């Protein structure tokens, strides 16, 4: 019961932190929180798909589409900030649904490659339609409707909190059962009456709209978008590194991972930025180390540590490292 109270408290403090930093934080704090919240949205979104057995290698597709949806709505129709974000959400959901329908029963590597192709395809389309998107030169947000930096920062905080709440609600619903069953064995789950396409479409739509929302807020934050920025492979990669680092298929893992990735990235950049390439190298080494020594992610490491401290789980028994079936 104590553990439960502690973890709920940490959640509440963390989410309040995301909402209150734009109000009270220093400019540096606001900046770090903004980037962390953006990654939280992407990481939780990626993890939602992964938990249904759908490994996305194209999360930048949603992110970029969300960015373009917001900027096009704002520039061409003068749509106000919050309404343009709704546009991002809808665009992401439609792309997610489309992805579910295209991929049908595809799983594993086939699904992953399709998402990669979709992302790359969207990037090419953005380059090929200069009249609409500004092409390779990119597009600037017309500053008329700019709601102010505070509102944009707050919006990302709200997006992160909302994303976590959605993930939490899913984890307590029948969807949680459907996704785990599909991840384990889509064929066998059908014999229990589960219609996989329905749940696949639901999760890709939810996950897609969330990632698009992050892209939408980002474009208001930066005021500029171009195809290379919007559909950057880097976004795809960080949105899966964070959940893997934090603890894949869990609720808190992607959030812990997003915080850790942002902090490690900043620390190496500030500490080693003056040596060419060194910060990325060290960042990479830290990630490799984490994957090697924390196979269950940061969350798994914490759980293990707490188990060990409270002396539960047969800690009196010396357990050799390699007792897992190989």
């Amino acid at each position, binding site marked *: 019961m104590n553990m439960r109270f502690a973890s709920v408290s940490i959640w509440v403090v963390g989410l309040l932190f995301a909402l209150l930093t734009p109000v009270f934080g220093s400019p540096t704090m606001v900046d770090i929180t903004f980037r962390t919240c953006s990654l939280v949205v992407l990481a939780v979104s990626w993890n939602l798909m992964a938990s249904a057995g759908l490994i996305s290698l194209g999360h930048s597709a949603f992110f970029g589409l969300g960015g373009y949806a917001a900027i096009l709505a704002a520039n061409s129709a003068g749509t106000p900030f919050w309404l343009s974000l709704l546009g991002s959400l809808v665009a992401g959901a439609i792309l997610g649904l489309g992805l579910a329908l295209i991929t049908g029963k595809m799983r594993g590597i086939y699904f992953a490659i399709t998402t990669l192709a979709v992302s790359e395809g969207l990037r090419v389309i953005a380059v090929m339609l200069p009249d609409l998107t500004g092409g390779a030169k990119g597009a600037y947000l017309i500053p008329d409707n700019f709601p102010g930096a505070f509102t944009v920062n707050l919006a990302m905080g709200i997006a992160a909190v909302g994303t976590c709440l959605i993930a939490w609600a899913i984890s*307590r*619903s*029948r969807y949680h*059962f*459907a996704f*785990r*069953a599909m*991840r*384990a*064995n889509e*064929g*066998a*789950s*059908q*014999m*229990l*009456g*589960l*219609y*996989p396409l329905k749940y696949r479409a639901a999760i890709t739509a939810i996950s897609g709209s969330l990632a698009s929302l992050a892209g939408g807020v980002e474009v208001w934050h930066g005021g500029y978008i171009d195809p290379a920025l919007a559909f950057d492979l880097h976004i795809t990669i960080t949105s899966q590194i964070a959940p893997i680092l934090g603890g894949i*298929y869990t609720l808190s893992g992607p959030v812990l991972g997003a915080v850790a990735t942002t902090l490690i990235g900043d620390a190496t950049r500030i500490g080693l930025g003056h040596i060419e390439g060194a910060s990325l190298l060290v960042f990479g080494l830290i990630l490799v180390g984490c994957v090697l020594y924390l196979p269950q992610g940061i969350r798994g490491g914490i759980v293990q540590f707490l188990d060990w401290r409270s002396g539960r789980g047969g800690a009196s028994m010396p357990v050799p490292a390699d007792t897992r079936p190989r």
Partner: protein
Amino acid sequence: MLKITNVAKSFGGIKAISDVSFEVRPGQFFGIIGANGAGKTTLLNLITGYAPLSSGTIEFEGEPIHGLPPYRIAHRGIGRTFQITQPFAEMSVRDNVVTGALFSRNGARRSLKEARAMSEEPLRLVGLTDQADVPAGALTLGGKKKLELARVLATEPKLILLDEVMGGLTWGEIEDLMSTLRRIHAAGATIVMIEHVVHVIVDLCDHVFVLNFGRELFRGTPQDVVTHPEVIEAYLGKPLAAGADA
């Protein structure tokens, strides 16, 4: 209840099932036996929509079900276990069974709490209550076979298709599971069972269908089947047939 008419299935020119017809009536306990590779599991895959028919028809409660996807066949009230067990390995044993209760034909109206409560009975029936919180992947083979059955029971099927549920079980466990199956049958379920443990078929089934090289070899009561010379020749083998009477 289940009517199979002139069903055939070929895989790339190789005939796995040719011209099989039989009918299972409500309340029957129907056995299917045959050598490894005779087409028994293929037949179950055809009935449950995992593979399309090459020709023929399959009807359930008077309506054709061939061509339907597996989840819709499950919603009609057909449940099946898999010979090669297919547990959701990372989920707990209980959550595996809860999944069955949630997505079956009545599952949509059921809350998570109700589904949890519903999982108790199947777990108890197969004797997995003590291991309910273990990840399903950690069960022994016999445990996974029992889980297959529990998961199907949670979908409240009218017709249950069992594909070698006794494999990997010891004598004592087989006895337990047989009495469980008798109870399920007595409670109104119709059961079709593929099994290699011959005495189980003889004790439980009222009608046995023998497949050999994808064709019907023989059908009749269990006693007729185990004494039929062709069945002994093709399936039982001589030494064990003598021992089977003991």
